[in-house]
């Protein structure tokens, strides 16, 4: 059996639990922010890299040739002519199913490299098919990028608020734990322990406690997040919007117990040093 520490910050285990809960909440907030951020980014990116070339209905037979011609333009990664059925399907919400015989303009979908020369594309398209027009979705992309930015900003604000609240709570919980050991701190001081020695004791305890609690909270959060991802992925329930978290982003979650440990450690150190300074 290891001998118990002279200073016992968390006799009943409440502190570890509280820190665990805060790490749990912070992890959920960060995961949600990451998912929202990722969705917004994918959304904006999916629009930014695309454009469409429209061809009057009577030039439908030149669609494949146009696509082939456009593939040769620098900056065009892919050019895909859209078949008649697909065009109808796209327009169906607007035109209804009853107007199938309407002569429809035809489209070539482009996937562009960043910084592609739009003027060159337009020029080449018009050469291949007179009347062909490049639509780079500028208006939509700008609006959606705005929304994406807003979502990202909101995510950052939420994460900051939750992180601040969590840190503050860990500060309070740690100080409350230390308060219960104030008489032991004084005793150690009186038997000749140096301030640094006492501070290291509480500091190490606070760190270990926070790591213990924080790791528990993180595992709980990971379970919830994994369940959410599983539910939202594939065909399972089709209930939740598609979520996805980049593997690198998971790493930021792993840092949470460490961050909690740091906060608890610094709080304990500062609080105990301040209390000791008051003694002669």
């Amino acid at each position: 059996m290891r001998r118990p520490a002279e200073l016992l910050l968390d006799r009943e285990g409440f502190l570890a639990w509280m820190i665990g809960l805060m790490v749990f909440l912070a992890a959920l907030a960060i995961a949600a922010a990451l998912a929202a951020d990722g969705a917004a980014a994918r959304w904006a990116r999916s629009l930014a890299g695309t454009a469409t070339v429209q061809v009057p209905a009577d030039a439908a037979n030149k669609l494949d040739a146009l696509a082939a011609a456009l593939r040769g333009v620098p900056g065009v990664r892919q050019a895909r002519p859209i078949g008649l059925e697909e065009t109808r399907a796209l327009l169906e919400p607007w035109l209804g199913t009853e107007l199938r015989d309407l002569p429809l303009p035809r489209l070539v979908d482009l996937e562009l490299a960043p910084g592609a020369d739009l003027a060159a594309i337009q020029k080449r398209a018009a050469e291949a098919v007179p009347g062909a027009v490049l639509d780079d979705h500028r208006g939509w992309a700008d609006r959606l990028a705005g929304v994406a930015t807003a979502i990202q900003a909101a995510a950052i604000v939420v994460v900051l608020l939750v992180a601040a609240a969590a840190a503050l709570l860990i500060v309070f919980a740690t100080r409350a734990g230390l308060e219960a050991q104030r008489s032991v701190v004084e005793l150690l001081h009186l038997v000749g322990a140096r301030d640094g020695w006492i501070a290291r004791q509480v500091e190490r305890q606070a760190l270990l406690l926070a790591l213990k609690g924080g790791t528990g909270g993180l595992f709980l959060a990971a379970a919830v997040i994994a369940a959410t991802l599983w539910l939202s992925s594939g065909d399972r329930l089709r209930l939740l919007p598609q979520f996805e978290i980049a593997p690198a982003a998971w790493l930021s979650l792993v840092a949470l117990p460490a961050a909690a440990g740091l906060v608890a450690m610094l709080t304990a150190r500062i609080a105990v040093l301040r209390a000791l300074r008051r003694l002669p």
Partner: protein
Amino acid sequence: MIRFDNVGMRYGDGPEVLHDVTFELESGGFAFLTGPSGAGKSTLLKLVYLAERPTRGLVHLLGHDIATTPRRRLPELRRRIGVVFQDFRLVDHLSAFDNVALPLRVAGAPETRIREEVTELLHWVGLGDHMDARPPALSGGQQQRIAIARAVIARPKLIVADEPTGNVDDKMAFRLMRLFEELNRHGTTVLVATHNDALVARFGHRRLRLEAGELMPERSARQSA
């Protein structure tokens, strides 16, 4: 060893509880501090074991003028002082053994030495069977003996004991006082605050008497008993 020069002391902005206290206890000396409840005995001892600073006057201790000793040097001094607190101040979550071992651990003594010496001392004070008990599971007198064992375990140069025998019977009280005398014979300076006049009378040592914060002119212990 200990020298007070016109020491005055007040807590916060309360009334002065020690007035112009002047005395000297030479190295290797042994003195009792007596006086009615509330006279300021514990306050005087707190100045000696560096738990408080005097409001005015000079305190010399172990060759240092406390007022001019830098704060970072004080832990060293404290390690050379063993204290029995009036309210024991045991750590509830540590065993009797670990409570007594505390000053050795703070001083960084090796665990083998700690085990040996603490075990021996606990047997000596009659607690060999209670080494693993926590203070709340011990009787008042047992707690007091742990407090005394903790005060002497690190062989301090100076022992300050505040009412160290209030919770033990006379036989144990004499046994504990003989422990202090034994250490005193080996050079340790001893200052004991007590209400136990029988004890003071029996051990014919010097007697300092406080009344309402003032040190009375000294008489010999036998006279005053």
